[in-house]
């Protein structure tokens, strides 16, 4: 009964979604010519290179034009780790719990050992070149986190230093905010990019503060994602659950 109701609802919703998407023809140019700067997108395409000297427009948008969103986004991640820590918080006496995953095979362990540095390096590459190539802090951070995931799965006794993660994510966050605040302090606006030399287009050191922010974001994301994975993996169905005070 409920199933049919849901199917009906889905069909109706689908109908209205499609009806709505009918007004959004696929592949049509809705931003207008970049030179006209009629829409935000056109403005970005037109102005990114002259204004910020960043090759990757998406990066420019993410870090500069809409940098505030990114700050929020980083905060969301930060809150997720903080929240996770409090949701799955264990008292000291139960801290020494094992990881939930089963012991893994030698193949995985060996492979992980080999792959881990490569994955981390790839991640670092991705976020360092975020302003030049597709990719960036988030992507790089995520790649690094997968490396740690691999290690966490492969080695049951693999211990991450939470203190280290905290330091990394906090410092990266502080870096991001202080770059933003620097703009404010120097009399401009928050997250302002103009005080930093722009550099030349398509070189590693270009785009002013954008790469710095993106690297900070990369570290932060990597640390946070790793932290999340670690917390999730190291929680198990422990016996003490029943006597936790409600």
């Amino acid at each position: 009964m409920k199933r049919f109701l849901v199917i009906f609802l889905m069909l109706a919703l689908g109908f209205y979604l499609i009806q709505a998407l009918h007004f959004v023809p696929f592949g049509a140019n809705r931003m207008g010519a970049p030179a006209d700067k009629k829409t935000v997108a056109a403005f970005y395409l037109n102005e990114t290179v002259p204004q910020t000297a960043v090759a990757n427009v998406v990066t420019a948008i993410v870090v500069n034009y809409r940098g505030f969103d990114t700050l929020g986004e980083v905060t969301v991640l930060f809150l997720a780790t903080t929240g996770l820590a409090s949701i799955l918080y264990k008292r000291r006496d139960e801290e020494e719990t094992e990881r939930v995953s089963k012991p893994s095979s030698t193949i995985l362990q060996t492979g992980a050992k080999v792959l881990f540095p490569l994955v981390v390096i790839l991640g670092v590459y991705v976020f360092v070149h975020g302003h030049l190539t597709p990719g960036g802090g988030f992507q790089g951070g995520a790649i690094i986190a997968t490396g740690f995931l691999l290690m966490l799965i492969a080695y049951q006794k693999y211990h991450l230093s939470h203190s280290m993660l905290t330091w990394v994510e906090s410092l990266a966050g502080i870096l991001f905010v202080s770059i933003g605040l620097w703009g404010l302090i120097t009399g401009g606006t928050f997250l302002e990019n103009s005080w930093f030399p722009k550099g030349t287009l398509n070189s590693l050191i270009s785009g002013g503060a954008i790469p710095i922010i993106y690297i900070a974001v990369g570290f932060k994301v990597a640390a946070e994602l790793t932290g999340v994975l670690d917390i999730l993996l190291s929680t198990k169905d422990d016996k003490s659950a029943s006597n936790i005070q409600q």
Partner: protein
Amino acid sequence: MSITPVHYIAVPLAAAFLIPILSKFHKETARIIPGLVFSYFLVISFVLMRQVSNTGIISETIAGWRAPWGINLVFGYFSGFFATLMSVIGFLTWLYSYRFKLVDSKPAMSYYILLMMLVTGSIGIVITGDIFNMFVFLEIVAISAFSLTSFYPGRDGAEAAFKYLLIASFSSFLILLAVLLLYTQTGTLNIAELSTKVHLIPQSLKLTILVMFVVGLGIESELFPLNGWAPDAYSQAPAPVGAVFAGVVVKGGIYATMRVMFTMFDINEMGQILLILGLITTIIAEVAAIKQTQVKRMLAYSSIGQMGVVMMAIGIGTEDAVFAALFMMFNHAIIKGLLFFSTGFLLHNSLTKTIAEMKGVAKKFPVLSFMFALGSFAIVGLPPFSGFWSKLYFLMAAADAKLFSMIALVLAVSIVEIVYYFRVVGVMYYHQPDESLPTKQPGLNAYFVMGFLAALIIGVGVYPDLITNFLHAAAYELTHKTEYVQTVLTQFVR
């Protein structure tokens, strides 16, 4: 460096990132830094409100890009009202929970960070001028709220948080979809520019977008069929967080609704629907509240009911109605705050937090019980407390719109409200305590917080002009969007 709206966001974020490091050196920093931030909020609010009254709406650019290109923050009377209210409630909540005994430093740290970010996120919703940015702040609020809801270990907190998360995911999905569709049609995400361009959207699509906003933001502002999460979340979160939910988080949702409905679109397009939704919400919530056995759950339903009335006022959509809605929100924030704060100690050691456990607490906690009773009197709208005026103004606005049947229904559910609030007061004062629960006496900080709120309730009740002029300005600003749009779109670059 002069104070600008972005301080509302940048300072707490810096603080939040700092706390994990600093608390490694000294555990108390996790408590104190949020307090400093909240105090700074008060300073910002005060300075900015003065600035607004001198020079009009403040529009601040981020990253140095002029309004449609970059994200901008807008601070006028309307946003300022919300930001100030949130700052005050946030500060009071921090002060109130300052001495909360927490198991050890780590959850305490999470608690204060999450609390701070809950308020910050809500203020972000309020001051941002960009619709996608608003979404991001909504998510910041949501994630902090999930974590705070399940803050107490135990199963019920997690259950409440999961329901909240499940429903809030729908909210973010719909808002995101609506923002995407808006973007495809107008090519911009700036609220001011959107308001000049929404007429370009085909009617059918516009309605779909509006519906998505109504549902998505309706979840945040606890409209009827969308509010299943609310009672659970309110009742499971720690009591001060309940106050923040009622005083800050919901206000963010309502603000977003108002901003979208008034500034971006025209309220008349969805006004009727909001009106009816608000009415249904009020009726069902109050009806559900009367049957509650848990105090905090009852307060939660009551909050929903109040928000229903606020939504009705928004649905009416005139300047007077908006004024009434703002007044009501102000009252709701301070009164519900007082109620949650006093229940926090009254039921401090209770496991089930039922009304029956409050039997005769007035003998042991005369001041707390008095505060609760005062809050009850105020929230049901008895003069000379502040709740009365907002009710009066709402009714006046509704009467202006000739919505008599609606007035009648709202007044009828007010009677229900009286019944359940007074029942609790009766239990507190006129029942003999049957067992002595080892309860905790509040500290001076909690007394200060409650005393302040009580003074505010009585002060505004006796002399509503303390706040009405300000609210009138806010209502005027919202219903006359030209100033907002012009300030944002024509501002000088840098």
